[in-house]
């Protein structure tokens, strides 16, 4: 019960903090809308206007990923800069439980981008928002957001020793957009990309959301895979934290920027 309360309060606090940040306004609203507009015009130019909803969902999911990537990757760094990392590590609850709300909040805030691209597409490009399976869509979105938050936890836990997480974040934005088929099918890519994508929650998240919205595939299997990958991320994150947190404390590098 105490853990659930900590996660709820921590997520709410961090999400409110993020919502007043201009950086997250850029990541969660402006950037996804700009990329959605680019995708809309590219599909229009190619004579494929029927794929606009496909593009809106993909760019929305890309926004959730960007928010999670920069927010979770930088979560520890921001705490280092603010001088609060040692306080967080020293607090009585397990550090995993303290860190989880920080990363969940970034993916929850990132969900703005999905609504922003759908709204933008509806208002300015006349995309019909008819979802094939409304209920499944309502389940798929939180499942995707939650699994990305857990992926953020894994990233944050593995970045604890790396003081330049922002550089890695800059690198990892596009590769995940590519490898998870957010804006074009994975079948266009070399065969080896397919198995890599199975390990990535955004792939299952976009499959679940897209299948629920467009009705062109199974919905519950990718939702289940969101849960499976999310669970695996938590196990890995716990193991990484045990190793890396101890190493950072032992070497006295926890607070070094």
């Amino acid at each position, binding site marked *: 019960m105490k853990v659930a309360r900590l996660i709820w309060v921590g997520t709410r606090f961090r999400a409110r903090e993020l919502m007043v940040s*201009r*950086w997250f306004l*850029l990541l969660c609203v*402006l*950037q996804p809308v*700009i*990329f959605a*507009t*680019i*995708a809309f*015009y*590219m*599909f*229009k*130019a*190619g*004579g*494929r206007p029927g*794929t606009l909803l496909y593009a809106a969902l993909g760019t929305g999911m890309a926004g959730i990923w960007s928010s999670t990537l920069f927010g979770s990757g930088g979560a520890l760094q921001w705490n280092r800069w603010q001088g609060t990392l040692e306080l967080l590590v020293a607090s009585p609850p397990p550090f995993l439980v303290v860190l989880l709300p920080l990363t969940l909040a970034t993916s929850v805030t990132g969900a703005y981008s999905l609504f922003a691209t759908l709204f933008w597409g509806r208002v300015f490009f006349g995309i019909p928002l008819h979802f094939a399976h409304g209920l499944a869509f309502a389940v798929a979105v939180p499942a995707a957001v939650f699994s990305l938050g857990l992926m953020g936890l894994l990233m944050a836990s593995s970045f604890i020793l790396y003081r*330049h997480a*922002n*550089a*890695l974040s*800059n*690198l990892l*934005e*596009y*590769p995940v*957009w*590519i490898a998870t088929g957010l*804006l*074009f*099918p994975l079948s*266009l*890519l070399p065969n080896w990309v397919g198995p890599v994508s199975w390990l990535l929650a955004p792939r299952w998240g976009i499959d679940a959301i897209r299948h629920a919205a467009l009705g062109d595939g199974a919905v519950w299997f990718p939702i289940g895979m969101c849960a499976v990958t999310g669970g695996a991320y938590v196990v890995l994150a716990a193991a990484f934290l045990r190793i890396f947190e101890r190493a950072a404390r032992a070497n006295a590098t926890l607070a070094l920027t």
Partner: protein
Amino acid sequence: MSTNLRVFFVGGLISYRALFNWIRLYIYIPTMLGSPLFQIVFFTYLGRYSHAGNGDAFFIVGNAVQVCGMSCVYGMTMAVANERWFGTLGPLLASPANRLAVFLGRGVPVFANGLIVSAFGFGVGVVLLHFRPPVHSLPALALCVCITTVSCTAFGMVLGSIGLRSKDFFFVANLAYFLMLLFCGVNIPLSVLPGWMSVIGRCLPLTHGIEAARQIAAGGALGDVSGLLWTELGIAAAYAAAGYVFFRALEYASRRSAVLDAF
């Protein structure tokens, strides 16, 4: 004269080394090379799926030229605006150095870095995406990239000058970088964009340079694109002048209000 040249070249280089945060290899490689690499791959595949352009070359050339903005927009913004962030703006402005040399000198390393990033982008196209421009077109293509990088650097000067007063200069730089992807015909033919968007695009750096580079890569002659390149140079001169005027005006306003280092 020699003092001004020293401020221009040596001062520009030293300030770049001091203020450009991403110059260390562990930041430079992922940010200035890794991100452009994947940007080019991403948009080329998106182009294949959408059928928006006339083959892969449209996207490879567009993005390989545009990625010089990684250096020009972010680099130039840091090279000017970080003076304030690092608390060195006051001593700089108190010095008697020629302001034009101080200001323009910062653009030289940024320009050189922009060329490296763009050349790397073309290399990505050749190695990963089978981009094969005619060999005889390479010098003209290099000239297109040079001119476009100059105009992009000049655009970065404007953004950097704004950073002398605005505390969210990175927000502005990021927004500008993404909007260039939309407005400058990098991935979308200008003819597809609404009229007002293509008008804005034609007032921005990159647009004419990318158009020229595409024609050259398709086998066109330098003479065929000279109009586009002169227009790109004109845009570069206009932005450089605007950047310098902003720099001086904001310097004066900051000194007058005593807010040089205030946030």
